[in-house]
């Protein structure tokens, strides 16, 4: 359908707003997990209590000396205040000597 030439034309603006998501670099990776400490971050959802032990066993078989800081030690990550988590989690991970983390389960 062709619009009538008498139909008004609207000049409209963008309904979104500037993004505050500045690109950030990821941490350096660890080529070999042997002898490293992996922290488990769990949201206490979706069978993590089954999934994490399976991961532990599989990684321990592959990487001698790998150690895990189990999710019970680090506590739930779901439902915690974002700012509080950001303020406390890095210290917790350092305190337990973590070199890397596995975060699960969901989005």
């Amino acid at each position, binding site marked *: 359908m062709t619009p009538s030439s008498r139909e008004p*034309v609207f000049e409209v603006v963008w*309904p*979104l*707003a500037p993004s505050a998501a500045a690109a950030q670099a990821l941490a350096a990776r660890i080529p070999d997990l042997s002898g490293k400490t992996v922290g488990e971050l769990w949201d206490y959802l979706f069978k993590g209590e089954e999934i994490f032990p399976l991961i532990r066993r599989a*990684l321990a078989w592959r990487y001698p000396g790998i150690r895990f800081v189990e999710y019970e030690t680090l506590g739930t990550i779901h439902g915690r205040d974002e700012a509080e988590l950001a303020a406390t989690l890095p210290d917790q991970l350092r305190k337990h000597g973590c070199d890397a983390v596995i975060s699960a389960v969901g989005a």
Partner: protein
Amino acid sequence: MLRAAAIAERAGLPSVSIVTTPFMQQAAVVMKGVGMPGLPIAEYPGVPMTDGSDTVRAKVEALIEPIVAGLARPVATTATASVEPGPRDVVFSGTLDEVQDFFYRNLWTDGLPVIPPTIPRVERFLEFTKRSPGEVIGHLLPENRAATVWSIAVNGVMAGCRPEYMPLLVALVQAIAEPEFRVQDAGSTPGWEPLVIVSGPVVRALDLNHGQGVMRVGRQANTSLGRFLRLYLRNIAGLRIPPGAGDKGSIASTFNVALAEDEAAAAEMGWTTFGQDQGFARDDSVVTVQSVVSASPPIYTAGTRALDHVQVLAEVFGRACAYWSCTGMKYARWQPLLVIGPSIAKVIAADGWSKDDVRKYLHEHVTIPAREAEKYAWHLGSTAFSLRAQVEAGVLPPEYAASGDPDRPVPVFVKPEWIGIVVAGDPGRNQSKGYCNNHIQGGRVSKRVALTL
């Protein structure tokens, strides 16, 4: 979960996140919002809650390689900063139909036609606030866009608000930007929807309905305020259902119209107003936002004594909230809301009951067998939930683990003070209605409205 991984990455620790297939699109929005679109992911195929143990084991075995790769392999960070329009840039010119099509294609509408946001219309809204158009009220996750005063006006225009609603729109956005509202979780699978509750002189000033049909579309202020909030969540927080992403509401519900209290009725019976219950003065104009995940059936109650009504309110509202109460027991914050019809409130108040008396009764008389709360929590996905563990962790009071009997009754309403009460609805009928909120997600937040009417 991904935000925790991002925190670890910022602290210098490599991470890998296990994300299930149905959450992958939402994950992309979250990762972009935290500035790490390349966060390593190990994708668990399918839905763990419908997988048996053998299937879980097989799928986890297949996850080991991507887990190792995520922690070990360097990730290329590709800066893809696209240039976005400025606030006053005209992004499209066209007829009304063409504007609708353009906005719909870009996922900027709720599927209904919008009022075209032209600069003159936006400026009319800005006349009703002393704030600068560029002022940032907050940043709304997961898409992490700036909630500017300008964007509030633009979306207010689109939603069909009137310019004089602008102070209320600003207060609304202030409320959802507060950490306790947890806007970042507004796209969670329960599909909760914000409910706006308006209190004080602004109710009359903006002609909000508080009477018959209060929760139905039809009154401009009630309807457009609710619609504005849903549009704002889509456009600034980035919560869009497919073909968009970010909103994972599994079935979800549509926007709620704004609720206003019949404050004259509350005053007449000597009850505090909902605004006062939130800590404001009776003559303060206040806007409150909280999540609503489901509603009770209409609750009809009859009789001349308070107990005649409160007993039935407890039964019907209590049963409507019973299964979802496990979320309140898990997260230690849960704010159900009871809308009591004016004629019913009048009988209850005349019998000497205050709102607090009603709350106390509901807390003491509505229970669920512990077994049912724990069972439903498991089905919901909280596979390690137990009431005893919650008591031991200090999240719940001892009464939740008073015995080892799995059928012991435990309170549905964890704390009486968490129950909100609003007097509204048809004064000519004996009906109330209850609303269940989504635990800590969409926590109740109130803001004073700076009226410039």
